[in-house]
């Protein structure tokens, strides 16, 4: 119990509470979870700031919640602030906050868009869709089938006919898919 209280200062905890969707208890629980990933690198005392401590991507990707996810690499990159996949506690908390149940739909959609945007150009182009589809199905589909599905996706979602999806088009279709909220959700 003593440990828990002294990991963060009162102000830090309050700041986390204001900026995430978590309660104090959950923040402490998530910190415990974060520390379990790399007990040597993460000190128990985070009062001097959380910026310097990073858990490398190689450890994050082995987390049980992420390791089976076909988009694991993208998730780590999106949430890590420097884009490398290494995560500070802030990044980690950010990720948990987005994937938690209480996160609003548009926040989730915004991050989902980033996750599916493999080449980071702010558009979901054909190649992004193909890569997403390949990650999803393994190598089961033939190239023809992939092309067909990709063209169908574009047909459904591409409102301005430019051959790729911008965020607003993505959000437009995602907000109509009731499954999105229930599937884009990780219990950390």
């Amino acid at each position, binding site marked *: 119990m003593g440990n828990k209280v002294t990991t963060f200062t009162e102000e830090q905890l309050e700041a986390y509470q204001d900026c995430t969707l978590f*309660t104090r208890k959950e923040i402490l629980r998530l910190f415990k979870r974060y520390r379990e990933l790399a007990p040597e690198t993460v000190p128990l005392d985070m009062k001097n700031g959380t910026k310097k401590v990073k858990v490398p991507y190689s450890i994050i990707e082995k987390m049980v919640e992420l390791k*089976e996810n076909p988009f694991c690499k993208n998730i780590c990159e999106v949430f890590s602030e420097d884009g490398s996949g290494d995560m500070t506690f802030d990044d980690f908390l950010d990720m948990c906050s987005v*994937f938690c149940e209480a996160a609003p739909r548009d926040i989730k959609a*915004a991050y989902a868009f980033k996750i599916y945007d493999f080449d980071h150009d702010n558009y979901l182009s054909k190649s992004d869709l193909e890569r997403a589809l390949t990650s999803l199905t393994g190598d*089961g589909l033939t190239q023809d089938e992939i092309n067909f599905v990709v063209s169908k*996706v574009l047909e459904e979602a591409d409102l301005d006919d430019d051959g790729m999806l911008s965020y607003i088009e993505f959000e437009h279709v995602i907000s109509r*898919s009731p499954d999105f909220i229930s599937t884009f959700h990780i219990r950390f």
Partner: protein
Amino acid sequence: MEQYRHQNGREHFPLGTVNPGYQEEGLHYYSDVIPPIGSYPGYNTNTSAHIPLDRRGSDASSYHSDTNTGPRHRWAAQEMRDTSILLERLPSRQLERLASDVAQKSSFRQKSKKRKSLHGTIHIPRGKDVSKELMDQYNEDPNLMNEFDIKDTTLPLSSKMRIRSLTKQRPGRLKSLKYSCGIAWMHFRQKMSDFAFYLQLWKGHMKKIEGHFGTGVLSYFLFLQWIFYINIPVFIVTFGFVIVPQLLDSSNISSNKTFTGKELLLGTGWFNDTIMYYGFYTNGTISNKYEMQFAYLLTCGAYYIMCIIIIALSISRSYKTNYIEGSGAYDFYYVTRVFCGWDYGIMAVDAAKLKHKGIWNELKEYLSGIQKEKKQATCGEKCKWIFIRLATNLFVLGSIGGCGYLIYFLSTNKVITNIAQEELKVMVMPICVSGIILILPLIFSFIGQLEKYEKPKTELYVGMVRTMLLKATVLAVLVSSWYRNTIESHPCWETYVGQEIYRLVIVDFIFTLLVTFFIEFIKRLFKEHCCKFLNYPEFDIGRNTLNLIYSQALCWLGTYFCPILSIVVIIKLFIIFYVKRVSVILNCKPSLRPWRAARAHTIFMGFLFVFFLLSAAAVACGIIFIRPSLNCGPFRNKDKPYQIVTDFVANLNHELNWLQVIINIISSPGFIAGTLVVLCVLTYYMRIVMVGHKEMVTLLQQQLAMEGKDKAYLLKMLQEASSKHKDKPKPPDRSRQLSPGAASTIENSRPDGRNVWIVTHPPPTDADDVLL
């Protein structure tokens, strides 16, 4: 700076490929000077900004910083290398801004109604230090603090924290009191949610189930948990207002029977003279103040009203998210498969493999289904299917009717009453009912396979409707036989009905346990040890959830006759949760068949609602029309339980005339009919509005697509023109006025932008003619 260089390297379009006019702006952007926030159009017009989603620096922001200035001659001097790059820079490509603009205008309209919609979502490039600008915004407009919630932004957490720390130092001068109240309220809410954190049951189990089986199976457990939760307030109300006062009553008769243990199963004997059943409650006044009759009836009414509010709220929410918001002009089949196909909750290796395979399967099936659809079924085949479905439906209806008759027969016939052994006599009926409810749905699902529906979804829903029809029939026959036959044959018929329902609940519980044990556990043992050809059992989400609904309907039906039933159901659900959880993890394999949890949830809620209405109606009938027993229960001297209400109103006649008048008006047929008519008109109006909106959406979508095509066409012309007239300078912002929507998002937009956009048809001889 280091960060920006890094972003620069990651730019999708290397700066070199962009023409110099842009490049200069690009340099401006990437220099140390961060562009003033005012250059984001969102910030100028609205309280919250909608900056496009960029990960690491982007063209979007650099584009906007060059709207005001721009070395035009340089732009024209350069040859356009690639239309696609120009296209990329077009305002309409930044559709995000456009849409957020529209959305915010509409939300301003709703400001008074729904303040929260004003927040919008702030999407800010990741990895940029934007907190300073946001901070400046705060200083300029302290109201902003109210207008949006920092939680609703897609900033990285560290930036959020920075903004927070910056704003914290300078609270609004005038509104500090308001803020401190707000903060106190927030702290209170945080305390409450901390408390709620402890109340959350089964968190770890849920995680494990979701990790192994995905959201489909989890939805069953969430439904179970939800039903568990709604029974708790029901129990608290009955316990607080009915059971405790009765326990405090001094005129308690001590039971002369002893508790042997088999009562737990039979619900008779010792239980008869306890607070368990209706018959035990007094019709007197407790401590000279508390009228038990009113307490009993009002509590009963209160929990039905409570339940109807809870269910109606959650069903409307679920319906709204799944059917109204989800219904557009298109059914986004592929988009859903690709973007929502993966279940992010999955954690187990096997489950992940199966999920991959499942998505693959589903796509394959759908692809082959498209090819199949092309060939039309012949007339003969159609007739054949119609005939088969007619026959199966007749069979299903017949078997449901047969079951209803069987139960009616059992309840009236002397066969049972002649059975000597008391235990067996009372247990025949519940075992029959539970047996029917267990076996017939299996037959129905077999029949469903014979019918060969095109979509597995249709088959599933048809099976569900049949199962629920069966359950409703069985319950209806039971209720009618209780109301007709038991009244004469039992001295305290309400207690007897309570016992019957209690036994039904218990037997249903035992059957659930047995089914879990035999179908799931034994099947797995067989699979592992002798019969390798068997499949691993799959968790049947539909059947299990429908069972939960049935059990809950029993609870609602029985709470009037057996006030303590809700706690029995709570205990039952608690045990079932653990049994199912252990069984599903140990025995079952995840299904390859996808389960659309969100939609199915609405269907289940619909069934639950129907069953709630049916059971509430049955109880209401009992209260209003059926004569209570003469010698027991709170209404023993009355003609009908409802009579206490009419008596009460009649007594008011002398004291409060106006109340009497109001009650008379409300209960008059004319008033009820009028209300119904008004409701119907309202519904019709809403429907018309909805249809109109739908048509509008289609129109707008078409318009948008046309606009995109127009723009591409114009751009092509522009490119051709510019290659012809390399020496003629052209202003760069022309191209941005090609679409009216885009023009509206840009400041200083030229008023003639709209006209330019419309002229698209004549093939140009000179590009300038078209553009000006």
